[in-house]
């Protein structure tokens, strides 16, 4: 695993894809949609950021499960650092979303507490901040790893249920909810897809890259204190 973290090709790919999505995202012709207009470009930034958060948390969850199965601290380190990066992406998702909502849903922010998807995202961030506080209050490494793995699996699975199931049952301003059609069915044309999918991939790779740096730093910290990982 460590060897893979040090290879360069996927980092180069991340840089190239990021450059591509940022230039193309700003420059390509987008379809003129009612209300959305040019803000539809935010699709290349807001949506991939959320996808990245969910994906990073999913990988973090897998590592938490691996920790519970095999009990190696290295798995726990990976899970924690991925969650950290995911929270940063979550905050970015909020900021880009606020910007978008400001221009399309009105600028009073009254939609902030009315929308179930925003509630789901907010709960997600709360859960992971609580996860870090839980980690902070257990001094022993083994115990901390075990308890926080249990919490993160418990909370993440429930979070997924909330984010992907509840909004479909209730009204939401987001596409794909409460009778609103999903974005892809009519708003996206094929050129936008050519930017959107690479963007998701680019952000995910960037997230993994940042996490890999944090993981290596954490491993060094453990080695320095002679903790067997």
């Amino acid at each position, binding site marked *: 695993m460590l060897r893979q973290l040090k290879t360069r090709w996927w980092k180069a790919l991340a840089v190239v894809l990021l450059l591509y999505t940022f230039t193309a995202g700003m420059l390509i012709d987008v379809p003129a949609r009612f209300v959305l207009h040019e803000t539809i470009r935010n699709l290349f930034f807001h949506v991939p950021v959320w996808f990245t958060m969910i994906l990073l948390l999913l990988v973090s969850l897998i590592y938490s499960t691996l920790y519970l199965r095999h009990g190696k601290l290295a798995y726990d380190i990976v899970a924690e650092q991925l969650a950290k990066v995911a929270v940063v992406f979550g905050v970015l998702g909020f900021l880009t979303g606020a910007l978008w909502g400001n221009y399309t849903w009105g600028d009073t922010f009254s939609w902030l507490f009315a929308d179930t998807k925003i*509630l789901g995202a907010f709960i997600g961030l*709360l859960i992971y901040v609580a996860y870090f506080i839980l980690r902070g209050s257990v001094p022993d490494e083994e*115990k901390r790893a075990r*308890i926080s793995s249990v919490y993160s699996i418990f909370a993440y699975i429930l979070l997924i249920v909330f984010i992907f199931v509840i909004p479909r049952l209730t009204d939401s301003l987001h596409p794909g909810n409460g009778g609103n059609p999903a974005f892809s069915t009519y708003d996206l044309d094929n050129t936008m897809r050519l930017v959107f999918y690479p963007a998701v991939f680019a952000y995910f790779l960037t997230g993994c890259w940042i996490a890999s740096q944090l993981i290596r730093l954490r491993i060094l910290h453990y080695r320095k204190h002679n903790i067997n990982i």
Partner: protein
Amino acid sequence: MNHSKVFVALLRKEVLSEWRNKYAISGILLYLLSIVMLIAFTFETTDDRTWMVMFWIAILFTSVNAVAKSFLQESEGRQYYMYTLAAPQLIILSKMVYNTLLMLLLSSIALLLYVVSLGYPVADSLSFLIAMLLGAMSFAATFSMISAIAGKASNSATLTAILSFPILLPVMRILIRISLRALPQESLQVNAQDMLYLLALNVFIVVLALILFPYLWRD
């Protein structure tokens, strides 16, 4: 001994230990009384929506205090002894069932105090009572599991609240939605979907807890 016998014994032990520590349950009752009186004296008169929302908030905070202690009050030594006697799944399940019963009792007392001090505006009592039952189940299941997690860390009382509130936020939202619909007229038909959804969610929480709890108690 077979599982059902162990389960009944565990449940009996929960009731007995609550009965012998009467100060704990009296503390919770006093807490509940204080919250309801606080609401009654600060609002004086409430409109229906405020009545309902404040009721659920009172229930939520009572259950943090009532249920969250379930793993915190037991000494570590006694917990280890319990684990040698019964399967971990049975222990968490018995806690959840016991806490559901406790929450039902506390919710009924809360409702009684509430009705005496602020009146009773609910038109569709059946929907409201089902919501109370489902709420008791969700709160008991979530807080039992989370208090098992928080009990392993320091400053567990605060931790229980911050670890469980994000999980209970959507549950509260659905509960309040059901109850608000129950306020003006009969609404069992409209509420059926939300109720089923909440029931499924409760089953989900219990199953997750059964899978994950065995990893918690081993030290």
